[in-house]
C-alpha cells in the first residue's frame, strides 16, 4: 500500500514539475506554485513513559509542501495538486505524502471534483458527528498543525446548486480509516496487549464504496444541513481475536444527522446531531463492534472585546444498546458509561495587530473523568514566517477512556513555517 502510494506520489511530483516547466508564458492560464517549508518537533513530557520502545521524541518532522493549481482559460476546468516531502528525523525515513490531487469541473449548477481531496463538513470544533471522512488523530496527538488532522479521500464529489437548496454527494470507492496510535511512537488503549495485530480492510468492491450526502440551505437566519452516510467505522475500529492474533477491522456504519449554525445572542450558536447505525451489530450484542449511538452537540462562540474569542461546547455520545454491550463484554474488560458527556472550552486572544496569538483548548468528560488540554502560543515574525509552541496534555482516571488512553503521550511541540 505504501509502495503504491509512493509511486503515485512520484508521478504527481513529476507532473507538478512538468506543469511548472511547460507553463512559463504568461497569460490567462496561470500556474500557481505555492507551499511552505516547515520544521515540527515534539517531545514526550509525561511522567510515565513507555519503555518499549524508549523514544521520547514524537515528532522530528521537517517537510516541504508544494501546491500547484492551474485553470483552463474558461475557468471551468481546474487542476490542483498538493504533496508533502517529509523527512522524519525520529525514524530517519524520507516520505512523500500526496495530500490532494484533483480535477474540478464546473458548470452553472454543478461542480464535480474527482481525485484525492479533503472533505469537511459539520459545525463542531474538533467534535465530528456527521463528518465521517478520514482523520489522522496521531497528527493531533503528536503536535502537528491542525490541518494534518484531515486526510484526503480518493473520491468523486458532486455538488448541485438548485437555488435555495444545495446538495453534495460523495462517493469514496477506496476506504481509508482514521489513523490512531499504533503503540510504537504513540501509545493508546488496546484490548489485546502484546499480541500481533492484523488489519482487515473492507474489500475494494463496488458494494464497499462509501457514500455520503449533504443537503444544505438557509432556514431563517441559520445555515442548516441534513446528512446521510453509508460506509464503515473509520474509528474506533472493531477488534477481535483470531487465534493468537488480534484483528483490527472496520464494521459497517450508517449515519443520519443534521446541523444548524447561525448568529444568536451576539455570538454564533451551533447545533449538530447524528444517529450512528452500527450496521454489522444492529442489536449491540457483539462487544468487538461499537454500539448504535446517538451523538449531539451544542456550541456557542462569542467575541468579547476587540481581540478575545471564547467558544464552549457540550457534546454527548449515547450508546443505544448499553445493556447488551455490558452483557457481551468479557469480564476483565472495562465497561464504558452509557452516555459519555463532554465539555469543551476554547479561548483565543490575539495581540499586537494579530501577530501573536495565545490560545487554550480544553476538552473534558465529567462522567468518564478524562481530559485533553492544548495551550499554544503562536507568533508571526513576518507575513511569511510563524512559529508556534504548545503542549498536548492527556489524562484520566482510567487508561481505557477516550483521552485517558493517551496519558503517556503528553508532549510539548514547536512548529516553524516559512510560506511562499
Amino acid at each position: 500500500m505504501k509502495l503504491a502510494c509512493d509511486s503515485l506520489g512520484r508521478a504527481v511530483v513529476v507532473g507538478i514539475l512538468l506543469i511548472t516547466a511547460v507553463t512559463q508564458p504568461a497569460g490567462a492560464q496561470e500556474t500557481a506554485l505555492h507551499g511552505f517549508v516547515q520544521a515540527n518537533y515534539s517531545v514526550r513530557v509525561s511522567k510515565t513513559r513507555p519503555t518499549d520502545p524508549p523514544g521520547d521524541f514524537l515528532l522530528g518532522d521537517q517537510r516541504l509542501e508544494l501546491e500547484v493549481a492551474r485553470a483552463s482559460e474558461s475557468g471551468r476546468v481546474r487542476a490542483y495538486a498538493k504533496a508533502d516531502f517529509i523527512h522524519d528525523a525520529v525514524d530517519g525515513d524520507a516520505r512523500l505524502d500526496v495530500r490532494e490531487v484533483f480535477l474540478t469541473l464546473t458548470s452553472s449548477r454543478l461542480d464535480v471534483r474527482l481525485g484525492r481531496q479533503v472533505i469537511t463538513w459539520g459545525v463542531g470544533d474538533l467534535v465530528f458527528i456527521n463528518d465521517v471522512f478520514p482523520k489522522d488523530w496521531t497528527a493531533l496527538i503528536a503536535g502537528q498543525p491542525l490541518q494534518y488532522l484531515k486526510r484526503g479521500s480518493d473520491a468523486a464529489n458532486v455538488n448541485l446548486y438548485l437555488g435555495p437548496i444545495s446538495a453534495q454527494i460523495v462517493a469514496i470507492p477506496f476506504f481509508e480509516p482514521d489513523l490512531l496510535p499504533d503503540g510504537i511512537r504513540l501509545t493508546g488503549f488496546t484490548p489485546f496487549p502484546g499480541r500481533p495485530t492484523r488489519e482487515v480492510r473492507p474489500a475494494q468492491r463496488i458494494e464497499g464504496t462509501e457514500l455520503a450526502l449533504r443537503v444544505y440551505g438557509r432556514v431563517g437566519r441559520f445555515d442548516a444541513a441534513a446528512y446521510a452516510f453509508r460506509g464503515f467505522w473509520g474509528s474506533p475500529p472493531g477488534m477481535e481475536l483470531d487465534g493468537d492474533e488480534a484483528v483490527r477491522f472496520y464494521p459497517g456504519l450508517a449515519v443520519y444527522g443534521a446541523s444548524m449554525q447561525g448568529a444568536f445572542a451576539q455570538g454564533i450558536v451551533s447545533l449538530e446531531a447524528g444517529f450512528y447505525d452500527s450496521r454489522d451489530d444492529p442489536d449491540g450484542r457483539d462487544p468487538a463492534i461499537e454500539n448504535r449511538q446517538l451523538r449531539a452537540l451544542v456550541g456557542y462562540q462569542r467575541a468579547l472585546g476587540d481581540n478575545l474569542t471564547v467558544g464552549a461546547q457540550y457534546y454527548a455520545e449515547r450508546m443505544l444498546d448499553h445493556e447488551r454491550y455490558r452483557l457481551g463484554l468479557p469480564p476483565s474488560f472495562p465497561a464504558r458509561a452509557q452516555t459519555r458527556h463532554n465539555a469543551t472550552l476554547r479561548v483565543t486572544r490575539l495581540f499586537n495587530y494579530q501577530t501573536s496569538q495565545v490560545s487554550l483548548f480544553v476538552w473534558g468528560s465529567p462522567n468518564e473523568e478524562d481530559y485533553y488540554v492544548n495551550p499554544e502560543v503562536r507568533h508571526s515574525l513576518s507575513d511569511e514566517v510563524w512559529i508556534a509552541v504548545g503542549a498536548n496534555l492527556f489524562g484520566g482516571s482510567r487508561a481505557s477512556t477516550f483521552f485517558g488512553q493517551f496519558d503517556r503521550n503528553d508532549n510539548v511541540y514547536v512548529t516553524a513555517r516559512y510560506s511562499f
Partner: protein
Amino acid sequence: MNTKITTAAGGLALLATMSVVTSAQEPPTQIMVRSQEAFLAAGNDMVARITMKLINKAGKERLRDLTMLRRDLEIGNQKYFMYFHQPADVRAMTFMVWKYPGRDDDRWVFVPAIKLVRRIAADDSRSSFVGSDFTYDDISGRDIELDRHTLLKEEAVGGTPCYVIESVPTSGSASEYGRKLSWIAKDSWLPLKEEYYDRRAQLARVFTADEVQTIGGHPTVMRRTMRDVKRAHRTEVAFESVRYDVGLTEALFAERYLREPPAEWIR
C-alpha cells in the same frame, strides 16, 4: 432598492441633486446617511483589488492583498466577498459577510488547508479587520442609528469644503470610541478625514482619504490611511481596478464560492 437605482443613474444626476441638497442644509444624520452611501455603497455592486500595508512603529510592513466583491441590496443590506491573494499564509482564504442594518451580521470564513467553512464571531465595533487599524465597522459601515450626530461647523480639507459632524454613541451601543469627528465633503459626500477619540477624550485614531477618483460616475477613495495615534501604527490602503455595476449576481455570495472562488472575478 429605489435609492440604488437613483445612485446608479450616474454622477451627473447625483451632482445636480447634491447642489440642491447643500443649499437646503441637511440635518446631520442625513449627511451621515448620504456619506455612508457614497463611501461604502456606491453603485449596485463593486469589484476592487485592495492592498493594505500594515506598518508598525519601526516601519516594518506587512501586506494584505485581496479582491473584494460587494453587492448592495435594499438600504443597509449588503453582501461582501473577499479573496486573499497574499500573504502566503492566508492565500486562497475567502471571507463573506452578509450585512444587515440593526442586527448582527453573518460572517463566514473558508480555511482552504482543511476545506472548512465556518462562521466567525466578531465584535464589529472593536475587532480588527485582518490585523489592520480598521475595524469591521470601518470596512462595511457602522449603523447610523448607533450614534447621535451633530453638525459642529463647516471647514475645508485640502481645499474641499466639508461638514464637520460629531458622532457620539447612544447610551448602550457598543463602540471603541467615545466620540468621532467626520469631515464630509460637500461635493462628493465622501469622508475626507475622521478623528476617533477614546472614552477619555484622547485622540486614538485618524482616518484620511488621500486620493479620490471618479469611477463610473462615483467619486471613490482610491487611497486611504488609518493611523493609530497612540500605538504609532498605521494602515495604508490602495484600491485598484475598481469597477462598479458589473452585474454581480446574488448567487455569488454563497458557500459554493467560498469553497470555489469565482475565477472570472478573482484574477
